[in-house]
């Protein structure tokens, strides 16, 4: 899966879960300020990403520093690459 495909998969999953307008899903979009998500949504976002990509990220410290959609893209891409390297 290319990085572009990963980003599309993330956006599709989050758009469905949170009923987001895909036009608003820009990398720089702030999760709280622009996409109007909140702390409960972030909990569910982790669950959706775990289900979508088949990995466990709930305990990852890095999740706490995620602010934008681009941060999510970068985080998931990095996790995928780490998994591929370790497998």
């Amino acid at each position: 899966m290319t990085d572009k495909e990963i980003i599309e998969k993330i956006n599709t999953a989050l758009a469905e879960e949170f009923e987001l307008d895909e036009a608003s899903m820009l990398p720089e979009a702030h999760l709280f300020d622009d996409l109007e998500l909140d702390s409960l949504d972030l909990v569910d976002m982790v669950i959706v990403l775990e289900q979508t990509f088949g990995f466990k990220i709930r305990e990852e410290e890095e999740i706490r520093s995620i602010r934008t959609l681009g941060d999510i893209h970068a985080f998931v891409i990095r996790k995928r690459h780490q998994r591929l390297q370790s497998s």
Partner: protein
Amino acid sequence: MPLNRVVVTGMGAVSPLGRGTGALFKGLSGGKSGIRFQPETAAVRGLRSHVAGRVMDVDPKEVPRKYRRSMSAGSLFAAVAAQEALVQGNLPEDLRTREDFGVAIGSTVGSVGTLEGFFREYFSGFCLERMRSTLFFKIMNHSPAANVTQILGIRGRTLAPAAACSTGCQTVGIGFETIASGKQRFMLCGGTDEFHPLFTATFDIMNAASTRYNEHPHRTPRPFDRDRDGVVCAEGCGILLLESLESALERGAPILAEVAGFATLSDPSHIANPDAASILSCMQACLENADLKPKAIDYINAHATATTEGDAAECEAIRKLFGGATAVSSLKGHLGHTMAASGTLELMACIFMMQQNRMLPTLNLDHVDPACEGIRHVRRVEEKSLQWILKNNFALGGVNSSVLLRRFNRDG
């Protein structure tokens, strides 16, 4: 006697007869039945009752996701009904968001359907990894009350009485007492329930659900009828906006009726079986709450769910307290048993009857059962000026409730 007089200034409904009080009153006036064949229960092995009254016209998407994510169907019904009540009550937002505006909204069980979904996941691999953060908010006992306060920005009391089929009248009684004692100025009061086969199964296992009319859903339930065979479960929500009389007059609100009395008493004789003496005591206590004699009552809206024992016990109690002259009918034949919502949906119908000077009959009452004789059944639409109406609501667990409505008269 209450310190403050309490009036109804708004009503909202979601019922098997349609969305809104207009659909409810039109259906009741036209003698319509909201009962349909229910494939969901027909598919359950061992369940014999395949009829129910379902809400067909509430789209969850009409509530923004931010609120909807913590709402099951029962909360959605409550939100829709509450908004209708506020519009009818002509209530501006600045009054709604004050700390003297509260809610008393209850349900039988928060959301059985949501619990079913949870346990389906839980037992398939004993895993919680797919559980969403908002699940618990849908199944809390006070979920509908909490969701209504969130969506409407309410800051006063959140009360959530839960007494199964007695919930509706209890919410109005608690709202009445809260306003009468000056603790709140406004209360949104009501019961709400969403259908699940568990409800039907609960009555079916006790041989108290209707099973003989699966091919003819409109002919059941049959309150007081000799051929009645039990409860038909239904869903919906009725919300009344209660307000102190002083407040209603001050802001020129439409005054639909006065809540003049309330009683709720326990029947410790049996967890399930109705008891005529306990029902009588409750109705009597309600009348005493308003310092009223039985002969003053123009019409009684019975709980009468069409069970063999329940209808007979309520008739016996009415006969002993009121004699055979006071008009009585039940609306379960139209609506089925909307459980927690039944008290408030049927209270709204009482207010409608009061406004129309017309009593609505018991649907499907073709032949009065000998055990239900000796009271004056309303068998067809009857014109009558209604000043005082008593509404009964009883629940499994031995919880009896009665609410007294009075046509509004400014002079008291």
